[in-house]
């Protein structure tokens, strides 16, 4: 390719920003913030240019870049995008910009280091989605780990160190076995063809024995399942989310979890089709368990962030469910759930962050009546709450509906169960919303004209909500100020995309169609 190396520019512009901040030793906090914002915005702009250059009719890799790096051992620098990675890349670049804006006021200590970590994380995440060489992919995959652990460990809340170490060890342990699997695949391909390569597209052409596929599939799967996270590999997630700073949670939920789903689609399915089919029933069972388990556990959470974290486990179950149904609806469903979950859950974490920044609490019982003083906030919250529970017309519905439809065709029972669980997600989401936004705040006297109260209490004097009213040390949730312009700036694009995908998913699906069609070829893909 002779034209502009757009993918490299997009991937490394955050890294360049990080280097500038690193070398400018005495940079004031504001300068660091601006440099980070400029670098991340540049990356976003490059990703949009990439979208414009992308040919929607093609199924193969586009805008590829490559140069020889360590050819003796098959390691080459190869980048490319197709319809599967492209939406995830744009999601990433967008969420990084939003995260930086969201951290503008929230992060006040070690701003310089924070922005460096954030930009490194951005480069790692984008790199994961554009790498076509397994070695390069593995590097980016691991590069993501360290900044994320640092972000949780330094800028997180009370129990941050435990969460950071747990996150790091969990994901490292998972990915190390993948490394062995990568090398084994490379060696097996070399023995078949005499060619040393780690190029994903070439490795896909290999013909691996079923036994070999089985264990290599499992090694890859373990790494991705931990990232997704699929039950029972999810235990790191609630800790990491609860302790992470707001922007950390946004990126964790918005992008890092998607890396797992992307890995399954990009590597496991095309390279090991036999093993994929063999393990599909097992994975579907795990997915359904994740969907149910996440929803039930979310129901009983008292901490807003934990509730959203467990809802992530539930939603991401739909991704694996969709993928391993091996039909068109399932793939579309998985992809759209991933994108939608990135937007919606990212936004929900931002909203939790807004309230935490003001009230210094995330406990549902200490909040209430936010609608009184924060109407704009309440509207956004309502929108994303509805999107998360899958209201038709918003993005959440499209993906989950398709995934359930796909499951119905292949595994009826799984379809029925996961359909039923959607009720649960409406339950925990709306109940949470009711308690936080509408219900009387703790310490607030009830409305004397409330007819229902009169009915219940008879003539007794109205009681104060939340018990005795000894909440003086807490901030009264009714006095919180509404979202400011900066916060609206972070929420509005997510809201717009959520509605757009919900109303008109066609263009998004068209973008993915050729790549997904090619992907499903070996599985007798139907339904396009």
């Amino acid at each position: 390719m002779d034209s502009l190396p757009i993918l490299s520019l997009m991937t490394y512009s955050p890294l360049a920003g990080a280097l500038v901040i690193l070398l400018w030793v005495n940079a004031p906090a504001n300068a660091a913030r601006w440099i980070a914002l400029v670098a991340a915005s540049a990356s976003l702009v490059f990703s949009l240019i990439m979208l414009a250059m992308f040919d929607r009719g093609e199924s193969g890799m586009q805008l590829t870049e490559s140069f020889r790096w360590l050819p003796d051992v098959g390691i080459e620098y190869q980048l490319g995008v197709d319809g599967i990675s492209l939406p995830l890349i744009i999601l990433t670049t967008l969420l990084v910009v939003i995260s930086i804006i969201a951290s503008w006021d929230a992060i006040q200590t070690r701003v310089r280091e924070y922005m460096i970590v954030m930009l490194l994380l951005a480069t790692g995440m984008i790199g994961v989605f554009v790498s076509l060489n397994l070695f390069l992919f593995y590097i980016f995959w691991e590069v993501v780990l360290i900044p994320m652990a640092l972000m949780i460990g330094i800028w997180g809340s009370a129990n941050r160190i435990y969460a950071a170490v747990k996150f790091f060890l969990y994901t490292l342990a998972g990915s190390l076995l993948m490394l062995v699997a990568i090398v084994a695949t490379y060696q097996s391909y070399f023995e078949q063809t005499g060619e040393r390569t780690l190029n994903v597209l070439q490795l896909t052409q290999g013909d691996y024995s079923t036994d070999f596929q089985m264990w290599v599939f499992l090694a890859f799967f373990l790494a991705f399942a931990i990232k997704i996270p699929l039950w029972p590999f999810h235990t790191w997630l609630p800790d990491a989310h609860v302790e992470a700073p707001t922007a950390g949670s946004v990126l964790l939920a918005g992008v890092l979890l998607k890396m797992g789903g992307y890995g399954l689609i990009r590597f496991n399915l095309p390279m090991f089709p036999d093993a994929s089919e063999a393990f599909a029933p097992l994975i579907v069972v795990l997915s359904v368990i994740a969907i149910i388990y996440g929803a039930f556990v979310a129901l009983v959470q008292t901490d807003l962030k934990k509730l959203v974290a467990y809802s992530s486990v539930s939603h991401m179950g739909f991704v694996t469910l969709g993928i391993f149904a091996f039909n068109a609806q399932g793939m579309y469903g998985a992809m759209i759930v991933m994108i939608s979950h990135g937007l919606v859950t990212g936004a929900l974490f931002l909203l939790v962050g807004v309230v935490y920044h003001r009230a210094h609490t995330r406990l549902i019982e200490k909040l209430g009546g936010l609608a009184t003083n924060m109407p704009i906030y309440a509207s956004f919250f309502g929108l994303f709450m509805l999107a998360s529970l899958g209201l038709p017309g918003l993005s959440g519905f499209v993906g989950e509906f398709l995934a359930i439809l796909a499951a119905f065709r292949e595994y009826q029972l799984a379809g029925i169960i996961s359909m039923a669980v959607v009720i649960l997600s409406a339950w925990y989401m709306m109940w949470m919303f009711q308690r936080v936004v509408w219900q009387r705040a703790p310490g607030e006297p009830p409305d004397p004209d409330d007819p229902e109260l009169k009915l219940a209490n008879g003539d007794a004097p109205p009681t104060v909500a939340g018990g005795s009213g000894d909440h003086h040390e807490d901030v009264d949730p009714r006095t919180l100020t509404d979202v400011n312009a900066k916060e609206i700036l972070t929420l509005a694009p997510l809201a717009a995309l959520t509605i757009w995908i919900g109303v008109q998913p066609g263009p998004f699906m068209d973008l993915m169609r050729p790549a997904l069609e090619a992907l499903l070829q070996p599985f007798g893909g139907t339904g396009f």
Partner: protein
Amino acid sequence: MPLELVHPEWGLIVPLLIMVGTIFALLVADLILPRDNQGAVAWVALAGLVASLASLLTIDWTAGESTFNGMFRADSFSLFINIVVLVAGILAVLISSSYVQSLQERGTMPMPEYLVLVMFSILGAMLVGAAGDLLIIFIGIEMGSLAVYVLTGFARRRMTSIEGALKYFLLGAFASAILVFGMAWIYGSTGTTSIPEISQQVGAIMAGEQLPEPALLLALLLLAVGLAFKIAAVPFHMWTPDAYQGAPTPVSAYMSVVPKVAGFAALARVLAEGLGPLSETWLLLIAILAIITMFYGNVVAISQRDVKRMLAYSSIGHTGYILVGLAAFSEDVPIEMSIGSVLFYLFAYTFMNIGAFAVVTWLQHRGQGVDLDSFNGLGVRSPLTALAMTVFMFSLMGVPPLIGFYAKYYVILAAIEAEMIWLAVAVVLASAVSAVFYLRVVVAMYFNDAEGEWRPQTTPMLGFGLMIMAVGTIALGFFSGPVLDLAMNWVDAFDV
């Protein structure tokens, strides 16, 4: 046997001659310079090492020439070993000069003597790398070991230093005896001490035989045990924690690398080249040794609070990883990756391990101890040093894109090429275990608050050394192509 007049090829041993010259210069400087003004000798040592490194360019290593009746060989293998030990020597001098000087002011560590010992030990390692004969291997190893025994006890007013040195010396002398005994058995069985001839003889003895001769087996075992001691493989590692902990920190940095490089060079020369025809016998032995070593080192390191002791166990763990490369060797199908990955790992290990010890030295200069708590809050006190230590820790852990990852990757590649997937899995599992204690240092630096007194001090040479190692650890992984090519050339040298 008629006497022949030997005409040695002096050109081939120029790098060693430069080292000898530097040693003489240092000894003379010790006599001439007044006791309280010997700081400049560090520059003499550095100049000698750099000159020796530069003189490597004057020799055509691909020709594989030899001199002194084949005792000394200038081939691609010895080139690589020379590069590693000379770079390690330069780094060791950079990080130790200020430390030695500050102790010298208290009259305990005379600088020129210290440097002379370091140079002797480097010379010994260079000899081992170039050895074409068992005797040269023995001489090189002894020359290096004796110098390091003394260096370990160099902080002679401190009990732990003396203790470590004594333990190292007693056990080391014992191991040397075993090594020589093994060489004697080899000589008894084959009638020669020349490594290429041993290979031929053993090949001839083995031809048509199902099992190796008991005498050869005994020799193999003795050699392996003697060298396993030098590289600190479990269960011959007993001296390591005490010696590393007791030695002055820059010495620990040095002795964790150069004697190990010499040991691995000897193992490769003796096992892979000399006893290559016996490889089926020793491969499994080395593989088991590798697994025991990597798990023992990494698991025990978790329970250490003293960072030097922790790094000692970590270096035992790394011995295990490197042994995997050796275990992937096969006489029948020469796998380039096997010894190549050993060499590359040694190269990578030099940067990251000396770097980790250098940060400990850096902290000691600033009034800190060597336990984990001394690292508390380093991320705030000195962000750049903390960053360097983070790089070293993650590199030792094997996290990409740092050089330690590439090293581990090549080792895993070698194991899988040799169809020993279980060995590759063991490497990654041990790496996952090792993450626990490396991460602890990073946690202390960034997540804990600073405590204790802090004595600001400037140590330009140490800082420069740290910078080189940190940059090397980051960048040399990306550009590992040429280094890897160089490491792969061992195939020509060994003529397998």
